[in-house]
C-alpha cells in the first residue's frame, strides 16, 4: 500500500473491453467482462455496472466462472496472478501467484484443484505453452500457484485457439482441442501424449488458417473458424483417416469467433462484417442474421441458459443479444479512433470528454461511468470501409463557455486540396441534442489549425465570437448575425480576416476577459484587440515555431504562455510586453486549468513523459512528476470537479477544482492492438482489500485527513466521512467479517463526532507513541525513496529547480508517521 498523500497515476477508463470473452453468470443476471485491469460486473436487467473488481496490476486476459461454485470467478492477468473472486460481493477470495505472464485461462469441471492457462515459453519468443496450474489449498489469501505442468507446447496465444471438449465416457477421458495457424490438434487428456493432428497438410497457403475453435457441448463435434471465412464442423476426428468435416460458408473474411448454444443446435459466428450469423442444426441453408452491429465482432459468448448472448466488438462495445437474435442493449466504452485529431475537449454541459469517435462522429465520453454517453454524427455521410478511400473526418472541435454552441471542422484526407467544412451547432434544449445551425464550406483555403470561442458568460450571446486559424496564413473571426427571415434565426458569417506577414497561423486563444486574442504565426505570437481587431503587440522567442499558446487566468491574466517546438516554454508579460521567464522544456501538451491559474505542461523527453504544473507568475513549477508514464501522452484535459475537493488542496492546490486527465497510446506487443487508456492523477488512498481493511483504511485515512487539516479552519463533516464505513460494514457478507466485538469499537468510533479542536500536542503525543512501531514499515522506505527521486529530478531540471521548504518536509514526515497509528490503537 502506498501512503496517502502521494500523487499517482490511476488508469481510470477507456480501457479495452475486449481483453477476453465475456462471461455470463450462471443465472444470466450478470455479465462479467474485462475492462483493462479490471473485471466489471454488469447487471443485464438494470443495464448498470454494479461492481468494479480491481486488483490486478496489468491487463486481465481471461475470466472463467469457477465450475464448482457459480458465484466465484477466476481471472488471470498479464501480471502473473490468478485471482478467485466472489463477484456478487466484488471481493477477492484468493490470489495465486504464478509468476509468468498468463495469456488465457480455462477451467474444467473435472479438474478439481487446477486450472489451465497459456503462458509464454521460457527462453523462446512467440511460443506459448498450455499449462495446468495447481491451485494449492491454503488458508491465506495470497497463495503460490507455481506448480505448473506443461500440457502442450506450441499453442496459440489467443484464448480462441484452445477449446476444451466434452468429457468422454470411454477410457480416453475428456479431450481438448487446440488450433493454431495451420494445424488442429486433438488431445485426449488421460493419455497426455495421444495427439491427433488434423489438417496439417491440407492447408496450403495462408488462406484457411484456423482462427478459432469451439466444441459442441453435447456431441463430439468441433467447429473451427478459418481465415477465409469458412466454418468447418469436424466429426469422427478420433480416426486419423475417416475424420470428416462439413463446411458452412457465409463470412467473406476471417471468422473471428464462434459459440455453440447450450444444446448445440445453434452456432453463432461473427467477423469483420459486423453481422452475427446463427446457423441452425449445422445446416448451411438455415441461417439467421443480425446485421448492422456497427463494428467487427471479436468475441461471442453465450449464457448458460441460452437466453442471451453477447458480442464484443472492436470498437470497445459489448452488445447483448436475445436468443431470437434481437439486439437488446449495449455497453459502449471509449471508441479508439485511429487518430484523435480533435484533442480532448470537455463539454461544459455534461463535463464529458469529447473526442473523435466512430469515423465522422463525435463521442461524448463520461469518465465517471467509463461509458460513452452520446455519439454525434458530424460528417453525416456514409462511411465506407475501404482501404485507400479518402474519407472526411472531424479534425477540430470547440465548445462555447456554456456549451450552447459547438463548432466543428471536418476535412477530407486529401493532403493538397482538403475539402473543408466548418459547422456550427446549437444545443436544442427540447431535443437535448445539438442541431446544425450553419454550415460554411471552405472556411479557409488550407487546413484549419486551431479554433476557439470567445467565451464570456456575462456578456451574453452578442459577445460570442469564433476564431479560426488556417494554414492559408490568415485567421478569421466569425460572428452571429440575425437572419432576415421572419423566424429570426441566427447564422454565422465571417467578420474579420487578419494576417501577419503572410505567416501560417497556428494557434489562437482568447484572454480570460475576452478583450485580447492571441494568434501565433509560426515563430511569432500576435496579440489583437478583440473590439477593433488592431494588432496590439507581438512576441517572439526564436528559433522555433510556436506550438501552443495560452493566456494566464485569474491572478495571472497578464501573462501569456507559449511553447515552441524548439523546446522552450516562454512566459511573456502583457503589460510590459517583455519576456517574463523562459524554460527549456520540450512541451507536448500545454493545458491551462479553466478554473484556476495553474497550467499543466507535459513534456516528452527520452522516452518518458513528465508533468510540470506551474503558475505563470512564478518561474518555478509548483509540481513536478517525472516519468509520469512510459507511453507518450498525446492529450490532456482538466475536467472541472463537481465540487472542489478540499482534502488534497494543501499539497496539490492545482487539483482542487479540476482533475487532470490524459490520454496515451498503449501498444501491447503480442497482439499489436492499440489500446487507449485514460489516466487521471489522483491523490492516493489506501487500497481496500477486504471489507475489514477497507474499514480500517477509511479510518486511517480519516485520521490522516484530520492531521493534514490541523490548524485550518475547515468545516469537516465527520458524519459524511463515517457513513461509508458504516455502509461497508452493513453491506459486507457476514462470513467474511471479523468478530463483532472486534468491529464494535470501530463502528462506534465512526459514529462519534470527533473533536474538531484537538490540540496539536495531543496529536503529537500519539505520533510519538506509534512512530516506533511504524518505523520498519516498508512503505515508509518507499516514500523516502520517492522523495529522493523527486529531488534528484529537480536537480536535473536545472533552471527549474525547486525545493521543499523545511517546514513542508517536516509536515510531510509527520503525516507519514501518523499513518498507521490507528492499527495498533485497535
Amino acid at each position, binding site marked *: 500500500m502506498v501512503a496517502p498523500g502521494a500523487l499517482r497515476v490511476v488508469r481510470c477508463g477507456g480501457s479495452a473491453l475486449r481483453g477476453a470473452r465475456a462471461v455470463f453468470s450462471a443465472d444470466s443476471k450478470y455479465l462479467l467482462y474485462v475492462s483493462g485491469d479490471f473485471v466489471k460486473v454488469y447487471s443485464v436487467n438494470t443495464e448498470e455496472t454494479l461492481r468494479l473488481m480491481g486488483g490486478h496490476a496489468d491487463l486481465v486476459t481471461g475470466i472463467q466462472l469457477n465450475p464448482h461454485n457459480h458465484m466465484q470467478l477466476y481471472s488471470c492477468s498479464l501480471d502473473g496472478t490468478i485471482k478467485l473472486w466472489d463477484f456478487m460481493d466484488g471481493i477477492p477470495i484468493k490470489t495465486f501467484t504464478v509468476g509468468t505472464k498468463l495469456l488465457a485461462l480455462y477451467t474444467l469441471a473435472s479438474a478439481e484443484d487446477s486450472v489451465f492457462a497459456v503462458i509464454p515459453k521460457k527462453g523462446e519468443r512467440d511460443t506459448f505453452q498450455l499449462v495446468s496450474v495447481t491451485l494449492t489449498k491454503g488458508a491465506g489469501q495470497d497463495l503460490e500457484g507455481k506448480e505448473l505442468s506443461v500440457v502442450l507446447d506450441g499453442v496459440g496465444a489467443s484464448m480462441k485457439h484452445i477449446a476444451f471438449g466434452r468429457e*468422454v465416457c470411454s477410457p480416453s477421458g475428456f479431450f481438448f482441442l487446440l488450433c493454431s495457424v495451420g494445424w488442429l490438434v486433438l488431445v485426449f487428456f488421460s493419455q497426455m501424449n495421444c495427439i491427433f493432428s488434423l489438417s496439417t497438410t491440407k492447408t496450403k497457403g495462408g488462406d484457411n488458417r484456423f482462427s478459432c475453435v469451439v466444441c459442441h457441448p453435447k456431441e*463430439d463435434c468441433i467447429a473451427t473458424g478459418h481465415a477465409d471465412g469458412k466454418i468447418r464442423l469436424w*466429426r*469422427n476426428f478420433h480416426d486419423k483417416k475417416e475424420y470428416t*468435416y462439413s*463446411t458452412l460458408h457465409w463470412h467473406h473474411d476471417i471468422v473471428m469467433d464462434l459459440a455453440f448454444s447450450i444444446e448445440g443446435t445453434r452456432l453463432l459466428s461473427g467477423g469483420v462484417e459486423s453481422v452475427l450469423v446463427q446457423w441452425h442444426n449445422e*445446416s448451411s*441453408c438455415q441461417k439467421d442474421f443480425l446485421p448492422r452491429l456497427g463494428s467487427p465482432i471479436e468475441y461471442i459468448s453465450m449464457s448458460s441458459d441460452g437466453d442471451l448472448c453477447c458480442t464484443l466488438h472492436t470498437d470497445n462495445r459489448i452488445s447483448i443479444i436475445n436468443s431470437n437474435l434481437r439486439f437488446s442493449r449495449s455497453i459502449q466504452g471509449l471508441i479508439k479512433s485511429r487518430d484523435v485529431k480533435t484533442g480532448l475537449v470537455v463539454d461544459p454541459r455534461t463535463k464529458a470528454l469529447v473526442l473523435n469517435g466512430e469515423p465522422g462522429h463525435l463521442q461524448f465520453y463520461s469518465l465517471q461511468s467509463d461509458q460513452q454517453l452520446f455519439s454525434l454524427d458530424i460528417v453525416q455521410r456514409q462511411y465506407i470501409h475501404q482501404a485507400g478511400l479518402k474519407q472526411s473526418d472531424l479534425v477540430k472541435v470547440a465548445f462555447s463557455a456554456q456549451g450552447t454552441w459547438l463548432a466543428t471542422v471536418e476535412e477530407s484526407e486529401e493532403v493538397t486540396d482538403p475539402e473543408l467544412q466548418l459547422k456550427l451547432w446549437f444545443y436544442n434544449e427540447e431535443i437535448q441534442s445539438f442541431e446544425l445551425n450553419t454550415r460554411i464550406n471552405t472556411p479557409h483555403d488550407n487546413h484549419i489549425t486551431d479554433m476557439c470561442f470567445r467565451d464570456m458568460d456575462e456578456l451574453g450571446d452578442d459577445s460570442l465570437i469564433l476564431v479560426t486559424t488556417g494554414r492559408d496564413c490568415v485567421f478569421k473571426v466569425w460572428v452571429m448575425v440575425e437572419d432576415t427571415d421572419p423566424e429570426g434565426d441566427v447564422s454565422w458569417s465571417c467578420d474579420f480576416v487578419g494576417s501577419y506577414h503572410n505567416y501560417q497561423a497556428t494557434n489562437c486563444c482568447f484572454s480570460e476577459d475576452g478583450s485580447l486574442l492571441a494568434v501565433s504565426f509560426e515563430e511569432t505570437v500576435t496579440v489583437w484587440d478583440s473590439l477593433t481587431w488592431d494588432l496590439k503587440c507581438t512576441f517572439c522567442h526564436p528559433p522555433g515555431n510556436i506550438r501552443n499558446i495560452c493566456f494566464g487566468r485569474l491572478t495571472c491574466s497578464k501573462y501569456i504562455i507559449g511553447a515552441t517546438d524548439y523546446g522552450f516554454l516562454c512566459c511573456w508579460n502583457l503589460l510590459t510586453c517583455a519576456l517574463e521567464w523562459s524554460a527549456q522544456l520540450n512541451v507536448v501538451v500545454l493545458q491551462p486549468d479553466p478554473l484556476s491559474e495553474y497550467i499543466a505542461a507535459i513534456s516528452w523527453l527520452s522516452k518518458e513523459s513528465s508533468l510540470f504544473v506551474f503558475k505563470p507568475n512564478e518561474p518555478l513549477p509548483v509540481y513536478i512528476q517525472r516519468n509520469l508514464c512510459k507511453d507518450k501522452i498525446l492529450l490532456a484535459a482538466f475536467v472541472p470537479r463537481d465540487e472542489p475537493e478540499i482534502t488534497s488542496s494543501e499539497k496539490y492546490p492545482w487539483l482542487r477544482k479540476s482533475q487532470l486527465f490524459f490520454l496515451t497510446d498503449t501498444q501491447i506487443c503480442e497482439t499489436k492492438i492499440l489500446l487507449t487508456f485514460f489516466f487521471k492523477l489522483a491523490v492516493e488512498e489506501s487500497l481496500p482489500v477486504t471489507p475489514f481493511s477497507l474499514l480500517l483504511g477509511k479510518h486511517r485515512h480519516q485520521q490522516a485527513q484530520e492531521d493534514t487539516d490541523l490548524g485550518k479552519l475547515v468545516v469537516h463533516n465527520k458524519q459524511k466521512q463515517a457513513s461509508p464505513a458504516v455502509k461497508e460494514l452493513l453491506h459486507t457478507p457476514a462470513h467474511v467479517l471479523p468478530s463483532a466485538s472486534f468491529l464494535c469499537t470501530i463502528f462506534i468510533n465512526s459514529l462519534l463526532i470527533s473533536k474538531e479542536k484537538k490540540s496539536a500536542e495531543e496529536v503529537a503525543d500519539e505520533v510519538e507513541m506509534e512512530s516506533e512501531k511504524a518505523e520498519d514499515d516498508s512503505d515508509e522506505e518507499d516514500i523516502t525513496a520517492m522523495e529522493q527521486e523527486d529531488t534528484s529530478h529537480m536537480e536535473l531540471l536545472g533552471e527549474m529547480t525547486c525545493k521543499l521548504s523545511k517546514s513542508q518536509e517536516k509536515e510531510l514526515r509527520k503525516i507519514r508517521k501518523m499513518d498507521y497509528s490507528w492499527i495498533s490503537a485497535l
Partner: protein
Amino acid sequence: MGEFEVHRVRFFGLVPAGVRCLACHPRGSRLALARTDGAVEVYNFAANYFQEKVIPGHELRTVESLCWAAGDRLFGAGLSGDITEYDLSGLSAARGVDGGGGPIWSMVANSTGTQLAIGCEDGSVKIFQVVPGGIQFERNLDRRKGRVLCLSWHPSDTHIVAGSIDFFRVIDVTSGQTVQRIMVNHHVEKAKRECVVWAISLLSSGTVVSADSFGRVQFWDWEQGTLAESHTVSTSAALSLAVSEKEDSIIVGTSTGATYQLQLLPVTLGGQEKRWVRTKPFQFHSHDVRAVAHSPTALISGGLDAQLVIRPLMEKIQKKSYDAALRKFTFPHRRLVSCARKARLLLFQFSQYLELWRLGSTEETGKDGEVLPLCQMPEHLVQLKSKGPEHIYCSCVSPCGTWVGYSTASRFHLYRVHCDGDGVSLRKVPKVPKLLPPAYQLQFSADSDSLFVASARGSVHVFQLLEPGGCKHLHTLRPPSGVEGRCLPFLPRGSAQGGCVAEVSAVVPSVHCPLLQHHCTVPTYNCAVSALAIHPSTNNLVIAYSDQQLLEFSIPEKQYTSWSRAVQSRGLHRAWLERDSPITHITFNPKNPSHILLHDTYLLCVLDKSLPLPDDSTLLMNQSTLKQLPETARKRQLHAFKICKKFQPLLFMDLLDENCLVVVERPIMDFKTQLPLPVQQKKFGT
C-alpha cells in the same frame, strides 16, 4: 523460329451432351453412363477410368435409366417406353421391349439382378424377368395415379419404394400391394409448389431416403410413416441420390451443380447412437447434377454440363495411386477429328452431322511463340447431315481430301468431295457394298487409294477406291480364331506400303498385323489400347495403353524394340503415369524418325527416343525451366519427354508436314456458353 508452325484450331464447335444417368456395375469394375442424346458409354475403372465402349445415340431413344442385371448385361429404359438391352461387344442396342406403361422414368434391378422394376408415366410399377436373350414381363404391382419418377428395391428384394410427385409409396413385392404412402410435404403448411421426389433409396434398416425438389434429403421410417431426419442441402432441387454399399454414406446431386455427401456418424466418440450428418460439399459442376453413383472408393457425379467427375474418398484408399486423384472427364476418349494432310482439310464429327473445314494459311514467319497473321481465313466448306435418326459412329477424310466416309449403326456412307475453286460439292458414292454394320473405325491409306473399315467381331474390310467415284470390296481380314467376337478392331494411322493394318481387341488387347494376311500378334497386355500408330519408315507399331504405358513393337522383327524394353525395365515417370486422360492420338515426324508425337486432352508431347528417359527425381514438364538455362546446362537437363501444355483441352493434333502442326482445341468456356443458363445463384462480390 519455333520447331513447328502450329495451326491452332478453335472452330470445332463440339458440345458434348449432358450426363443423364449413371449405373455402377455391382462388382464396381465398370460404370455405365447415358447421355441426354441417348449415347451410352462404359468406363472401366480398372483401366484408369478409360472410356472403353461408346454406343452412339439415337434420336428416338432417350435413356432415362440404366441398370446392370444378370451379371454383365446392361439395360436401358427411356421416355420412348421401351426397355433396351445393349450389346456391349457389338456396340449396338438390341431391339427394345415395350414396357407397356407409357414413358419409363426409372428402372432398377434387384440385388440379384434377376428382375427389373420399371416406373412408368401412368403410375404403374412393373416387374420384368431377365431371361437369357432378353426380358420377359412378369407382373404389375399396385398402380396409383402419378408418374413414378424413381424406384428402389430393398436389399432383401421384399419391398420396392416408388417416388412420385408429392408422395412416395412402399410396395410389397410379393403381394403387389402398396403398404405405405407418405406425403413428403404434408407438414408444410399449404405448400404452393408441388414437391417432386427426384430420387429415393430404401436402406436395409427400413429407412427411406428421399431427395426432393425442395432441396431436402429426408430420412423416413416407412413402417411408421414418420420423418426421422430432414436435411436441407440446397435451396434448389436435389435431383439424384446414391447410397454406398455399406449404407454409411450418401451422395446427393443438386440442380445448382453442387454435390453433397451425407455420412452416418456416431454422435459421440465410441457411442452407439448414429446420425446422418451432411459433411462435404463439392462444387464440380456448373449445371444440374442429374446422376450420381457411389462406388466403394469414390463419389461419381455426372451433370448436364457433360462432365463426369470421379472424386475419390481419400479415407477409403489405402495407398496413393491413380485412384487417389480427382478425375474429370468432359471430352470423349476417342478421336472426333480427322485430317486430310495434303489437302489441309479437317473433318469434324458431330453426333448427327459432319463438318469439313479448310485450314487458314499464312505467309509470314515469326519467332517462337509469336502469333502469325492469317492471309487466308479458315473456311467452312461443307456440312454433311447424316440421314435418319441414328447418330454417327465414326468418320474419316482421306489424306488427299477427296473422300469422306462415315458410318451409323446401320449404314456405311462414302462421299466424294469435289473442290473446284470456291465451290465444294459432295457426291455420294453409289453402290457401297453392304457391310455387317456398324463400322467402328475408318481409315484411308496414305495414298488414298484404299479404305479400311473396322467392323464387328474384329474383322477389317478393305475397299479399293476407284476414280472418279466408286469403290470395290477387296477382301476381309479376320482375327485369329479364339479372340473373335470379343475384340474391337482398332486401326492405326500410317502404314508403310499402304497395306499394313493393325487391329486391337480391347478386351484381350493383342495386336494383329496382317499384311493382307495375319502377320503377327503383339503379346497381350491387360489394359485397353487408347491409341496406336505404325511408323511409316521403320514399321514400328507404337501403342499407348489406357494405363499410360507406351510400347513400341517392331512389326518386321515381331518383337518389342530395344527402346521399348528399356522403357519397360526403367519404368515411366511417375508424373506421366498419374496423368488424367489417355493418349488419344499418335503420329510421327517424317523429318526425325526418333520423334513420336502424342497427345491427350491436356498435353502434347514430343517423345524423343534418342534422349535419356527421365527418372522420378527429375521434373517431367521441364520445358519452361529449360528455357531459362544456358545452353550447356540445358543439354544435361534434356530428357525424352518434351511436353507442351499450351493447348488445352486438346481434342486433336496431327502433323501436316515436316514443320507444320495442327491442333484442335475446344476451350471449356466456349462450350459452356452454349449450354443452357445454370440455376441463378447469388455469388458474393458479383
